[in-house]
């Protein structure tokens, strides 16, 4: 086997039938699967359409690392900053009401397993860990379709000459824009109300070396993750904005539903401009210069949208499987991608030991994912999207405005007694929530966010 590998070159690939498994996409899910399978003794090839792993990948910027830490040594990983502060800001068109948390524990390793990273660096590093474990990486190669025999998936077609690769197992880790899985009818194309469009800009401060530590009150490798929602973030759309600190740059961006992007809201770039010039956000970017602009779509259909994960000869992992959590407080996807790749890889190693490729033999993947935090979290918040959609005017517009007004009233300095300020503030909140009855209903409806 080693000799054959040495004889190959990427111009005239002859990988057909040489591998136990083909992984479509060397993102975090794909590399987690490849690494797990290589560790399990399988011959694995990862096929990546970008120039290097991560070249086609975009995310907000915070990676949660508990599973990666078990698969690889994070000490060598290209991390930007650990998250020392999380801030949630509600924006009206000119107010901000925010909550911030920065526990001392987050300054201690492993920093709550939360780091900003750049995918162009991190994904390449993670793919290298799979290569070090024995996997083969083929870049600048696009998988264009699947090969089937009697219904079973037995390989992939690529855009290389003679580019068909047959292998007993195919791992579909192609990301949210999952053309291959959809065309093979392994999943349906998602509704546009369940997909977010996102834009991100990475900003540097050429005239201010201390901009990041001063503006975000940071020392050393500490970093900040700010989340924003309300009218000042994404207008009347269902979504939010973010600001994350990297080593020498700051990422700013936003995401909201495609169904909102096509109706009324300015286009994503215009919405980003408005967010960046909000009075609560603009001071963070004074004198900034854009290093890179990026766009991405995010599958946000939740547990309902997760397709059948195992097929005869194939599994679906990561964003391609819709494994993204967005409940307003927790925004997670890359960690779920890694977890899914790990469980998928393990199930393939086990199936290979039995010499089986059928979906039943791979079912441990779906079962273990179901028992893991991935599906448990998705199922826990399944109800939330519908609730917020029904209450969107309240959540994104009325509540931020009422809180800003109540705060203004509560802290008002004049010659009236505090009692009347407090009463006015309370009245403003009560008006927004619909009195005690309305408040009780809301508390009941949203109690599971925090409990």
């Amino acid at each position, binding site marked *: 086997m080693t000799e054959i590998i040495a004889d190959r070159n990427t111009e005239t690939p002859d990988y057909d039938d040489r591998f136990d498994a083909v992984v479509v996409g060397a993102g975090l899910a794909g590399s987690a699967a490849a690494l797990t399978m290589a560790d399990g003794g399988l011959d694995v090839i990862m096929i990546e359409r970008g*120039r290097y792993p991560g070249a086609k990948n975009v995310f907000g910027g915070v990676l949660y690392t508990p599973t990666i830490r078990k698969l690889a040594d994070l000490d060598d990983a290209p991390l930007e900053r650990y998250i020392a502060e999380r801030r949630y800001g509600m924006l009206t068109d000119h107010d901000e009401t925010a909550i911030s948390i920065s526990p001392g524990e987050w300054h201690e390793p492993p920093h709550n397993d939360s780091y900003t990273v750049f*995918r162009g*660096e991190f994904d390449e590093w993670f793919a290298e860990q799979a290569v070090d474990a024995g996997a083969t990486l083929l870049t600048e190669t696009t998988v264009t379709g699947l090969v089937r025999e009697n219904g079973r998936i037995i390989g992939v077609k690529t855009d*290389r000459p003679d580019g068909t690769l047959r292998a007993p197992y195919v791992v579909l880790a192609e990301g949210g824009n999952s053309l291959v899985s959809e065309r093979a009818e392994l999943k349906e194309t998602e509704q546009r109300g369940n997909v977010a469009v996102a834009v991100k800009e990475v900003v540097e401060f050429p005239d201010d070396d201390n901009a990041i530590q001063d503006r975000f009150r940071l020392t050393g490798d500490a970093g900040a993750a700010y989340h924003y929602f309300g009218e000042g973030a994404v207008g009347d759309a269902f979504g939010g904005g973010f600001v994350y600190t990297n080593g020498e740059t700051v990422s700013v961006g936003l995401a909201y539903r495609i169904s909102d992007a096509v109706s009324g809201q300015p*286009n994503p770039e215009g919405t*980003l401009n408005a967010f960046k010039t*909000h009075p609560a956000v603009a001071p963070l970017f004074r004198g900034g210069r854009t290093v890179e602009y990026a766009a991405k*779509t995010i599958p946000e259909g939740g547990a309902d949208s997760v397709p059948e994960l195992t097929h005869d000869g194939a599994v679906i992992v990561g964003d391609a499987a819709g494994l993204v959590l967005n409940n307003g407080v927790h925004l997670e996807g890359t960690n779920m991608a890694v977890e899914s790749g790990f469980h998928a890889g393990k199930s393939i190693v086990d199936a290979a030991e039995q010499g089986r490729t059928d979906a039943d033999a791979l079912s441990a993947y779906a079962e273990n994912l179901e028992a893991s935090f991935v599906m448990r979290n998705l199922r826990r918040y399944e109800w939330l999207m519908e609730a917020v959609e029904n209450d969107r005017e309240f959540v994104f517009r009325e509540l931020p405005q009422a809180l800003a007004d109540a705060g203004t009233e509560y802290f008002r300095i004049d010659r009236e007694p505090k009692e009347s300020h407090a009463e006015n503030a309370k009245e403003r909140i009560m008006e927004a929530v619909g009195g005690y009855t309305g408040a009780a209903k809301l508390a009941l409806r949203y109690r599971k966010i925090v409990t």
Partner: protein
Amino acid sequence: MSVQPHSPDVENDSLEDRLYTVKYEDPGESHLDVTLPGLCAERCTTYDCVSVCPAGVWREGEEGVPEIAYENCLECGSCRWACVHGNVEWEYPETGSGVTYKNG
């Protein structure tokens, strides 16, 4: 002290300048298309592909058929979902071409 909060001027780059920050290799032909131009012309009045695009790829064109500046494409795929007529043809740019992000 002014009544309105005073925001510092934040210079937002033009879309052209923003796109210029992204490393790009032209695949030579468009990876995007409309399936049936007649469908755009006769059935579509909303130009959702234009509204959603973060990169100015899709533009209102003559006779109701959008023009496609595929070299601007950031490969987010949003147009594919935005079009309720399912009329967007979307392929991955081949052999490593298209965008190459460093800070994605």
